[in-house]
């Protein structure tokens, strides 16, 4: 490298990108290590390209070797494999000479001798660019790296078993014994991992997941007792309180819109009588002024396709005034894009015809591949 870099190069200009073929392409510089895999090295500066030909830490992080070495570490084939891998992935940068410091040949040979055969078992090859003869012998003129006392055997994404073996951090406390001494399954309470334990089970969840409207614990206990609403209010799915008169009026009042969910259903034994849940009570829909467009809207809103048959069924209760009725709003057709419940209203009088709406829907065509015409008929050969 030229003894002093041009200022544009030192500032990390794109002109110094080693992929650009210009006069600055020999210019190297030290940069802090950001590759998570190698954050626990006895050095913290690196320079690129590395010994595997990667041009940046970003390229290293998505490289084949970044997946390969951590997987291989778990086999316990060589105590200092991760250290060796990191000397290739993020070579030490000498802050004075700005030169990469390679691993010593003996470190390379030990790693290869002990771990190459393990890779062979699953049909994979040792990284091609890591020919040991390219690295200097220890004690020679050139400086090289060997593991010192205190070098971590496991990468930060691994858990170190008491025995010294490395297993992936995700294997810790997963209910399976991965360490030979079972130490990965010790002290696995939720609190030890800064998580909340679902009452009645050993499932752990983040504190932020409690009372957030999405059930995560068995029996939904993380969503229980989350809101205290007044008598005239109902609890939204996300535990807000909304006045019961606003429930199912066609406008959302809960921020998660749960006050407008499941407002319309087809009930009764036949599964066809239109029922609307309004102001926290069930209503039948009076058939007076009902129209085909409203049948279409209902089936569509329920996700059931298109209406196949509509009937106006006589109310059988026999007790006048017992049934709660909703009526078609006189201006229902001006409320474009609204849900059915927004197009109905309560009136003081009962339903004149005493007939309620009964509706069957047919699922719209789906999942059908093109007709045979597109495909040649099967011909016996």
């Amino acid at each position: 490298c030229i003894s002093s870099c041009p200022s544009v190069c030192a500032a990390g200009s794109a002109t110094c990108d080693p992929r650009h073929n210009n006069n600055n392409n020999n210019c190297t510089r030290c940069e802090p290590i950001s590759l998570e895999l190698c954050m626990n090295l006895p050095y913290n500066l690196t320079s690129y390209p590395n010994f595997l030909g990667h041009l940046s830490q970003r390229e290293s992080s998505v490289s084949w070797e970044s997946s390969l070495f951590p997987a291989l570490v778990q086999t316990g084939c060589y105590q200092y494999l991760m250290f060796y891998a990191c000397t290739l992935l993020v070579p030490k940068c000498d802050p004075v000479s700005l030169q990469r410091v390679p691993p010593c040949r003996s470190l390379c040979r030990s790693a290869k001798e002990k771990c190459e055969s393990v890779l062979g078992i699953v049909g994979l090859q040792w990284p091609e660019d890591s020919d040991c003869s390219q690295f200097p012998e220890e004690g020679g003129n050139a400086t090289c790296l060997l593991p010192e006392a205190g070098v971590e055997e496991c990468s930060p994404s691994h858990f170190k078993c008491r025995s010294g073996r490395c297993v992936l951090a995700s294997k810790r406390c997963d209910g399976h014994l991965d360490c030979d001494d079972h130490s990965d399954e010790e002290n696995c309470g939720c609190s030890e991992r800064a998580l909340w334990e679902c009452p009645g089970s050993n499932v752990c969840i983040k504190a932020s997941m409690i009372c957030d409207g999405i059930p995560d614990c068995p029996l939904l206990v993380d969503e229980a007792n989350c809101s205290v609403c007044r008598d005239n209010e109902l609890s939204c799915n996300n535990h807000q309180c909304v006045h019961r008169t606003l429930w199912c009026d066609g406008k959302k009042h809960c921020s998660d819109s749960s006050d407008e969910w499941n407002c319309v259903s087809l009930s009764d034994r036949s599964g066809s009588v239109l029922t609307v849940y309004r102001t926290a009570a069930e209503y039948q829909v009076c058939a007076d002024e009902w129209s085909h467009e409203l049948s279409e809207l209902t089936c569509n809103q329920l996700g059931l396709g298109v209406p196949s048959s509509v009937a106006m069924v006589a109310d059988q209760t026999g007790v006048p005034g017992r049934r709660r009725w909703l009526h078609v709003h006189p201006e229902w057709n001006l409320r474009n894009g609204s849900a059915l419940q927004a197009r109905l209203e309560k009136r003081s009088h009962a339903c004149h015809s005493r007939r309620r709406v009964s509706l069957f829907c047919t699922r719209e065509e789906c999942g059908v591949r093109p007709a045979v015409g597109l495909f040649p008929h099967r011909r016996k050969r």
Partner: protein
Amino acid sequence: ILGGRVTRRGAWPWQCSLQSGQSGHVCGCVLIARRWALTVAHCFEGRESADLWKVVLGLNNLDHPGVHSQSRGVRSIIVHPRYNRAVVDYDISVVQLESEVEETAFVRPVCLPQPGQLPSPDSYCYITGWGHMGNRMPFKLQEGEVRIISLSQCQSYFDMKTITPRMLCAGYEAGTVDSCMGDSGGPLVCEEDAGRWTLFGLTSWGSVCFSKVLGPGVYSNVTHFTPWIQQQIYIHTYLTD
């Protein structure tokens, strides 16, 4: 798709391509209604603005859209609120198109599964997409037949990530037929009675697909999300603030 084959034109009329600016095809998607498509959440990482995207349907050759293709802008993107990019959990999003598609022999929606309806382990289903083939990216839509793998068996294949109930595994231990980069968001469909096809999975993640040694592909389990999908369509179609 690795180990697949070129599809016949129009064979999978619900398959769509999610495209963005100069990049062109970024992910697969699946038409579930005239104005609604599904894809995975990770396709939108760092680019969640609807303006950036368009959905192309009725496509076979990415380079030659042809007369049967239809293109729609995206009105809104609804990413699952629990999407976790670290473990790729809840990897699903609903896409609202600017306008309805015209239903033709080449553009048709697929069926969603009923709540609780899952494909049986060891049954055979199909994956489709314009993703990497191992040696190159294809121009023509590819299809591959994959075997459904039980959750417990799938959990034994993967060390790095946890297989959650929101995921579904399909493929082969040897990775002979598998989805790959660029197939994300595309469909895993199974044939039901009367020749009807149901969407059970969306291509989500897997091991390095080129290696062909590291197990099956992992798909978002659409059955788990059916109520959420229906709720989103309802909210965005009918509700006002």
